[in-house]
Structures are given as structure tokens and as C-alpha cells.
């Protein structure tokens, strides 16, 4: 059933981390290939000609692109273990809605925290905190967004946890102070091997962003 699984990825990418977590949850053996995004491999360009982006999941030679689509694919193919989406259609729609919300908001707002200054940065910080509070509200009294069990929305959001340190340093604020429940959730997720192994080290992310800013000529 397994076949050959390859993941084209870039170590700081929260999107790549989602797929790594899903593969680890399902205990799927795969080949991890690091891409240099300034010098994309022929394989990447061939497997994702439309967007030319990572992550790309390649299963038996066939590419699947876009991280949330990869997570759903992994969940459907390896459906005999560690289910990520619940069976109930309404709960699935709710999980997809909030994962889509994460996609629409968190990456761009977080990016503004380290790319911009002054008013633009302040506005992004304010909006990011509002979005994280909205997400925090979805937890309710549950240990995970999936309820009792770790699930799709947990996979979609938890990779951003290793970027929070960077957001906090540049934005000069504490996400834990604003959203304590959310941080408690993230720490709970980090106790899972699939998450701990898949997320990058937060200090390495911060160093990476410092280097990236220099390379992009951003003050």
C-alpha cells in the first residue's frame, strides 16, 4: 500500500511541516529532499509546474501539490490508522473552514511582522492577535482542535508555533500573554513525536529570517 513516497520540502516551511506531521502520524516511510529555493531542482519544476513551490508530495511518481490537499490525500490513502479528518461531514467542513482561515490570514500577517515596521507592523500585529484569539476560541475545553484527538486543524496550525518566536521578537509582544490557551495547546502538540520531529527549531527559524532580511535588503 505504501509504495514510494518522496517529499520535496524546505526546512523552515510551515506548509512542508504540515505534510511531514501527517506522514509521521501515519508512520509512513518517505524520502525527504531539501530544496534550495534560489535554485529549484528540475524535479520540483517538473512536479509542480503551475506554482513551482514546495512542498510537493510524490507518491509512486505522481505529484500532489498544496499542503492541505496533501494532508487530505495522506488521510484518505492511509485510512486505516490515525485519522485526521473526522467522519462527520459537518465537523469536516468546520475543520476545513478554520484550516482555510489559517491559510488566508496567519502566514501573511506573520510575514508583515518581520518584513515591515511602524504603522503597518502594528496593524499586522493587532490583526494577528485577533486571528489567533479567534482560533483559540475554537478549542473550547478540548485538548485538540480535533476534539479528544489530534486532527486536521491541529496539523494545519501547529507548524506556525515554531515561527511564533520570530513573530514575537520582531513584533515585541508575547503570544502566550495574549493567547495562553493556544500556547498550552501548542506545547501539548509538541509532546507528540510526529510534531516534535517535524517542526523546525524556533531559534534556527529566527536566524534564518535575519539572514533572509539581509539577503532581501529589508532593514
Amino acid at each position, binding site marked *: 500500500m505504501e509504495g514510494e513516497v518522496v517529499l520535496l520540502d524546505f526546512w523552515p516551511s510551515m506548509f512542508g511541516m504540515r505534510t511531514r506531521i501527517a506522514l509521521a502520524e501515519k508512520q509512513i516511510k518517505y524520502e525527504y529532499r531539501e530544496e534550495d529555493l534560489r535554485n529549484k531542482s528540475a524535479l520540483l519544476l517538473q512536479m509542480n509546474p503551475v506554482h513551482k513551490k514546495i512542498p510537493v508530495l510524490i*507518491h509512486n511518481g*505522481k505529484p500532489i501539490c*498544496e499542503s492541505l490537499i496533501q494532508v487530505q490525500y495522506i488521510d484518505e490513502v492511509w485510512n486505516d490508522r490515525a485519522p485526521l479528518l473526522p467522519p462527520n461531514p459537518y465537523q469536516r*467542513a468546520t475543520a476545513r473552514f478554520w484550516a482555510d482561515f489559517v491559510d488566508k490570514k496567519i502566514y501573511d500577517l506573520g510575514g508583515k511582522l518581520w518584513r515591515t515596521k511602524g504603522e503597518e507592523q502594528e496593524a499586522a500585529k493587532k490583526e494577528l492577535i485577533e486571528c489567533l484569539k479567534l482560533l483559540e476560541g475554537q478549542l473550547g475545553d478540548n485538548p485538540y482542535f480535533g476534539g479528544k484527538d489530534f486532527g486536521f486543524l491541529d496539523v494545519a496550525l501547529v507548524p506556525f508555533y515554531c515561527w511564533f518566536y520570530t513573530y514575537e521578537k520582531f513584533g515585541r509582544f508575547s503570544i502566550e500573554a495574549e493567547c495562553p490557551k493556544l500556547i498550552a495547546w501548542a506545547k501539548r502538540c509538541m509532546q507528540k513525536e510526529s510534531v516534535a520531529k517535524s517542526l523546525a527549531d524556533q531559534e534556527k527559524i529566527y536566524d534564518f529570517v535575519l539572514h533572509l532580511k539581509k539577503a532581501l535588503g529589508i532593514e
Partner: protein
Amino acid sequence: MSKAAGLLILDYWVSPFCQRVKIALNEKGLQYEDRHENDLFGGKSELLLNSNPVYQKVPVFLHDGKPVCESTIIVSYIDETWSSPPLLPPCSYGRAQARFWADYIDKKVFDATGNIWRSKEVNVEAKNEFIGILKQLEEALGDKDYFNGATFGFVDIIAIPLTCWFLAVERIGGFTVAEECPKFSSWTKRCLQRESVAKALPDPEKVYEFVLMFRKMQGID
């Protein structure tokens, strides 16, 4: 026609996103109430604001009072709740491909039309970008009758309502889709022959009038 209890769409006549939901429900043979938000730009209904507090946008689909938001997610929900006829292919890889193209259409098409019809002057760059996107979709279509294969399905539903805006784009941009992307044009005509689609879509001439009115309101014309 089967009647399922309490199906309601919060709708706005020109929204291609609302039309996706209607087509999906029509395909499944379901009856539903279509409630029009008459004052989307001024006074949204309480039900809309309560059902979609995050975005406050249409469409909202209410199933026995429980709201589902975001058109692509609503179409997936409808497909998973009422299984016949299936809108997605049976195999996991086919489903991943369908979701990929639905996501591509969501990311690219409506904004590309907007770049043309919101522009005061004829914007050649915007026109080329729009044509490029349709050509990419033509490649995805290949020799198939529908994006879904031999039968109409998920990606077709996501794409077809956007074509009602193409007349406006053609008139303002000064080109025709039929000439630039004939395959895409044939696919459009094929879909419009389906009753589920024809019933749900507005007359493109009325969409054009709406665009002209919007341009005037925004001081573009």
C-alpha cells in the same frame, strides 16, 4: 426531486460563489430556499452576520440551521452529505487533482477578471494574465469533456459560474475568450447545456450591467 429538511442559502444574485452552491444542490436533486441578501453593501441581515461572523459574506449554506461558509467548502459538504451523484472522482489521486484545480481557480480567476473590469484604461498585462490562466485550465481539461472527466463534477462546478463575468471582461478588455481559448469556450457551452447550471446562473448581460454600475459608483467610468 427529494426534499431534505431545512436547506437555505444566503445568496446574492451576481455572486459566482453562491451560484456554485446552487449548482451543487441542483445536481443532487435537492430543494432549498434561496434567500437573497438585498442590501449586501449597506445592511446585511442578522442571519448573515450571525451565521458568518468571521467574514460576513455570502454564500452561507444552512442545513437545519447549522451554517457552512466558503463556497468550495460548502460544495464539498454537500457532496459528502448527499452522496449521489458523486461530484468528486472515486480515487484519492483524482480527488487530490480536483482539489488542486479548484484551489487554483479560487486563487486566480476572479481576481484576474477584476484586474480587467476594475481598470479605467484597457490593461494589456491584466488581459494577458487572464488568458494565461484560461490556457492553463485548458491544459488541465485536456481532451476531456469536463474537468471531472466524462461526467460533470466538482471542478466544473467551481469554475462555471465565473464564466458569467467573461462577457464584461471581453467588452471592457476588447477581446473574446472564444478566439483566445476555444477549448475553454466549448467547455463553457457544454456546461451551460446542463439544467442544474442554466437554472443557477444569471444572464451575462445583466452581470455586465452590474459591472458598469459598479464602475460608475467607484468613479472608474
